[in-house]
């Protein structure tokens, strides 16, 4: 049996100060916790179905079943219209799993350990969110890759396409805090999915993801107008197939900031209350 000795260099003077200051510590802890989430993702690749297979199925479904009817029989025209919208919807849905995983972690008691350690309250949540970047990037790569095989073509250029992907991921990182918050307040991970679908389906169908919104009745157009998915879809569409970008881009960025301002504190509060 090895003997363990108390570390003589740890004194009360330096034990209370995080190494390199509070902000550096938060960054370090979040990275360590993000790596934990990534290891979990790699160990359970089946958990990536919602960001790989699912968007592909949506793409096939809507292009081949509705595409003919919706765009005057020209599926290629519809695919060009649909893909940027579906990208936005997939990013919104990509965050659902995050809330579910966090809910499961809390139920299992893994978070009790983190809460008994001297890390900032936000670190476990920020780490999990940061690790989700990989999933959002996967969605973008899969959709653009598979879309290209189906005949989708970027009509603008390389840089606008990169900007579209960056914006989509950024939106995903903001929107997912709703899922984090829901994960903190509902009891089971199944309920997280239920609540999030209830939120996301009206948002994605009541937007220009699938059809031009001028075909909708007036009251629905009013909803489309205040829907955060709308400016996101319009911006991504502009960046991928051309069209006005500046105005929807600012609206999207404003929405992202708004989501963060509202849901990060809500999620944090719910997290600290959850015993």
């Amino acid at each position: 049996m090895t003997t363990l000795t108390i570390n003589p260099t740890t004194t009360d003077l330096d034990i209370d100060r995080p190494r390199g200051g509070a902000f550096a510590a938060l960054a370090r802890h979040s990275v360590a916790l993000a790596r934990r989430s990534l290891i979990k993702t790699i160990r359970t690749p089946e958990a990536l179905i919602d960001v790989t297979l699912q968007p592909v199925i949506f793409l096939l479904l809507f292009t081949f079943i509705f595409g003919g009817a919706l765009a005057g029989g020209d599926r290629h025209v519809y695919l060009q219209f649909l893909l940027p919208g579906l990208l936005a919807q997939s990013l919104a849905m990509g965050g659902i799993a995050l809330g579910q995983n966090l809910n499961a972690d809390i139920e299992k008691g893994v978070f009790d350990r983190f809460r008994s350690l001297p890390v900032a309250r936000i670190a476990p949540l920020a780490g999990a969110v940061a690790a989700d970047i990989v999933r959002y990037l996967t969605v973008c790569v899969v959709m653009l890759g598979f879309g290209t095989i189906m005949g989708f073509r970027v009509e603008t250029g390389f840089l606008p396409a990169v900007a579209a992907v960056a914006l989509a991921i950024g939106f995903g990182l903001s929107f997912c805090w709703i899922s984090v918050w829901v994960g903190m307040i509902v009891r089971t991970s199944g309920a997280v999915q239920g609540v999030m679908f209830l939120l996301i389906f009206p948002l994605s169908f009541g937007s220009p993801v699938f059809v031009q919104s001028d075909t909708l009745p007036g009251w629905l157009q009013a909803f489309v107008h205040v829907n955060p998915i709308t400016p996101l879809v319009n911006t991504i569409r502009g960046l991928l197939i051309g069209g006005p970008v500046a105005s929807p881009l600012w609206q999207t960025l404003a929405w992202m900031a708004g989501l963060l301002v509202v849901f990060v504190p809500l999620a944090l509060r719910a997290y600290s209350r959850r015993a």
Partner: protein
Amino acid sequence: MTDLVVRAEGLRKRFGKTQALDGVDLAMRRGTVLGVLGPNGAGKTTAVRVLATLLRPDEGYAEVAGIDVLKQPQRVRRRIGLTGQYASVDEDLTGTQNLVLIGQLLDMHSSDAKKRAAELLEWFDLSEAAGRPAKTYSGGMRRRLDLAASLVGRPEVIFLDEPTTGLDPAKREDMWGVVRTQVAQGSSVLLTTQYLEEADALADEIVVINKGRVIAFDTPDGLKRRVGGLTLRVRPADPARLPDALRVLDMVAAPGTNASADTAAGARGGAVSVPVTTDTALDEALPALRRAGVEVTELGLHLPSLDEVFHALTSEDAVPQTSKEAELV
């Protein structure tokens, strides 16, 4: 004044209709083991969660390592290790990854965290499994990893919430060895348990909690004196020899007690038992029974069960029974 490493006064916590803590006071001296004993739902876990900064009490004051738990939880967190009732290791991470993560969150340098992880894994006999995801571990291995995780930062105060519940007796002994080693190295350990035997084996002092209240705070010996302590139990092969067995037991009984007068003694179901002070009573009883020619089918020392402890502690004010309750079956 003695050096108290855990001190709590008047802790109250209510969950809905349940008053989980109803004015709990606790005191643990530095370098000792405090056993918190109580049945399920007594409030043990709630008390530990308050002390380990996971839960804010509705009322009361608590300090750990001289630091106010409510005002400076982060400073407390740098000095404690917690192992909860359910193994809270991360199943997808390997043993090493679990421990290194804790080390990183404790602001250790990566190389130190890795060294410490390897050291603990070896100590807990998990070196071979170090590279496997924890979901492949057996229940006992997970418990050990969980305990190792709470020791990564060489904490001053260690909280163990029912560390041996669900472990087989051999694993339980191992766990006891770990606790003793930690104390020998200068840590203080607060552990909750449902087993009087465990509290007796490890604790310097025992707090008995029931329904959110402390109903006793004593050394194990003091507690045993109050609840009857060890009993020696004999079951003669021939029930007709009970009176002879009783006579022998009276000779080895603790001073001031005897089988015929002590409330905790008497005969039940063809056996007799008496309170004894030490286990040497067993050495005296066996030859005496032989000399008296009493054959036995059962002869043993018993600690009172938790039920008996509660019965004794909650009925201390009751009039002691003096009549012998020897029923011959």
